């Protein structure tokens, strides 16, 4: 079973959660708490408590998300440490992508979505009046499930964010006034592409249309594009799900390196991948519940929840 619930299409995301919601809602309209093969058990608070040194980069408290009548996320609380990789795993429709999209308020795009609870970025609440979404999304970048480069040149794709933020000036008028930042753009493009391990492959064709790149290259371009705005947190929504194994392993290596400078939160459907690349893992199970959260090694080798163990050993999901 592949994860189809959260497509990159925001509107669709809301609909598909409702329509493909077999996991969430049975044919009778009664909430169905478990998928087949899943046992019932009560979630305990201590399973999601995870102690780490230092302050939390992102602190989520009692987050509830509703799509219309659908309760997609149920009272999720977790703290995400700085400069690390946090993996979110779980079966289809468990709300992990929804959770991810709450962290930079991309769920605001979905008109039917209602969000309750609190998310704080470095202690500052992002769900309050007067939050500058532009500023938030500059600081919390995002890479989507399927690569979505703009139909522009590779160079323009990378420099898009900074140009739109007014950090870089290019174009006719800037050139006329002698304020053009062409050199800075070149530096930025090279630095970002190197960070995303794409520089060697595309350095000779920076002015080609980005849609001409292969899928794996496009996805790394999207990562480079997100890095170019110099975010603090990078959210990745199954960035490798549409890619072949070679491209996937490149992205995995990349994620590992990025954790030195960035706080990475990655949704994945692939448990091996989560085990390989993450420092801590959060397991969401059916019904939009966060069941277990802890150090990756502990979660995979000695899970506290029976359901998590069943899920990791492949009994359902």
């Amino acid at each position, binding site marked *: 079973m592949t994860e189809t619930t959260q497509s*990159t299409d925001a509107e669709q995301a809301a609909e598909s959660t409702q329509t493909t919601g077999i996991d969430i809602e049975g044919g009778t309209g009664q909430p169905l708490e478990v998928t087949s093969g899943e046992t019932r058990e009560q979630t305990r608070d201590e399973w999601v408590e995870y102690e780490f040194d230092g302050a939390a980069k992102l602190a989520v408290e009692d987050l509830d998300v509703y799509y219309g009548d659908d309760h997609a996320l149920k009272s999720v609380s977790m703290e995400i440490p700085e400069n690390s990789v946090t993996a979110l795993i779980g079966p289809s429709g468990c709300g992990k992508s929804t959770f991810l999209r709450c962290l930079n308020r991309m769920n605001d795009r979905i008109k039917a979505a209602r969000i309750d609870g609190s998310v704080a970025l470095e202690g500052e609440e992002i769900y309050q009046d007067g939050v500058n979404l*532009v500023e938030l999304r500059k600081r919390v970048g995002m890479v989507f499930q399927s690569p*979505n480069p703009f139909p522009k040149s590779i160079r323009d794709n990378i420099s898009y964010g900074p140009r739109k933020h007014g950090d870089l000036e290019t174009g006719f008028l800037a050139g006329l006034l002698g304020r053009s930042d062409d050199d800075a753009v070149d530096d930025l493009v090279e630095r970002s592409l190197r960070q995303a391990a794409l520089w060697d492959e595309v350095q000779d064709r920076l002015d080609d249309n980005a849609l001409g790149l292969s899928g794996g290259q496009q996805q790394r371009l999207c990562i480079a594009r997100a890095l170019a705005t110099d975010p603090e947190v990078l959210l990745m929504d199954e960035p490798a799900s549409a890619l072949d194994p070679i491209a996937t392993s490149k992205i995995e290596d990349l994620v590992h390196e990025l954790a030195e400078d960035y706080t990475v939160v990655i949704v994945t459907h692939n448990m091996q991948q989560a085990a390989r690349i993450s420092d801590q893992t959060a397991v969401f199970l059916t019904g939009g519940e966060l069941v277990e959260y802890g150090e990756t090694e502990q979660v995979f080798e000695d899970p506290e929840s029976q359901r998590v163990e069943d899920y990791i050993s492949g009994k359902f999901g």
Partner: protein
Amino acid sequence: MTILPQYDGAGLRTAVRRELQRGRDFVDETEPDALVTVAVASVSLLAAFVGFLAVSSLTAIPFAVFLVATGYGWIRHQELTARVLTLTTTISTILILGLILVFIFAEAWPTVEYATMTVFGIPIPGLRLFVETRWSPVTPPIRYSLVPMIHGTVLVTIIATAVAAPLGVAAALFLSEIAPRTVRELVKPGVEILAGIPSIVYGFIGFTILSPWASDQFDIVGQGTYLFVGVVVGLMALPTVVSVAEDALNSVPESMKSGSLALGTTDWQTMTSITLPAAFSGVSAAVLLGVGRAIGETMAATVMLRGSPGLTKPLYNVFYGNDTLTSLIAANYGDADGLQLSALFVAGVILFITVLFLSIGSQYIEARMRQKLGGTD
């Protein structure tokens, strides 16, 4: 997908051979009875068509045969008959376009021939229609220049486009990107209803309200201005622009828009830097179609203009409105015959060809856009 097929000899020959082979297989495989029925139906329909073209009162006979044959075929060999019938309907659709071309060209020819002008010893038919400016069907020298009407059509189209294009694209942006769902569900049918108001009603309101008001405001002698015809026609072309442009904007993948927003841009920046450029060809196709609508709009122009062919003085004086190609036809068909009627058909040919090219052009642009967004470019 390309609109304009690329012909190459070898490919065409193989295609023909394949079709022939298929035809032979078809004859071999089909029951003789069914084949005869279909053949009778086709031949009789063809005969009926020829009879109709030849203005024969006997047309009814082959047509009756056709009805009987298809009726029989429908009962006995429905599968084949259905296929042949649908093919017939498809061909007649194309045929209608062909017939329009042939008939209006044929009717237009006498005037084109009459207006032959000799340049450097080479007679060029129809040239005088476009180099002189005199339209005088009654007082000699009798001349049928279309220049004044083309001038009027161009002025009206420019003004209408200036109204419909920016407002239409902005409204399309509003509908597809900005409006909350409830507002969109109200505004969209509203725009469609705007498209539904008959042009004669627009013309009537223009004629009774706008024209007298304009004469009064601008101290114009008499009534009828290209300016306000243009504004009214622009309003009428607006829904076309809005709905086609909105389709184009909607076809830009949501993932691209989300990708831009996730980088921390405003909605407006996303629209101007991502959505509009990506949908540019679709939006320009929308504007082209709107231009086509404006060129072909008849009734508002007919009732609001003066109906006295001639150029305005000076040429850019939009406060006077004489005649457009469409209003010329609508206002003069009644008492025209002979060469004058034929001259009206020339106007029709110009309209038809221009709008057909605009339509093909916009289809080509749209096909290009689909190709580009498909990522194969």
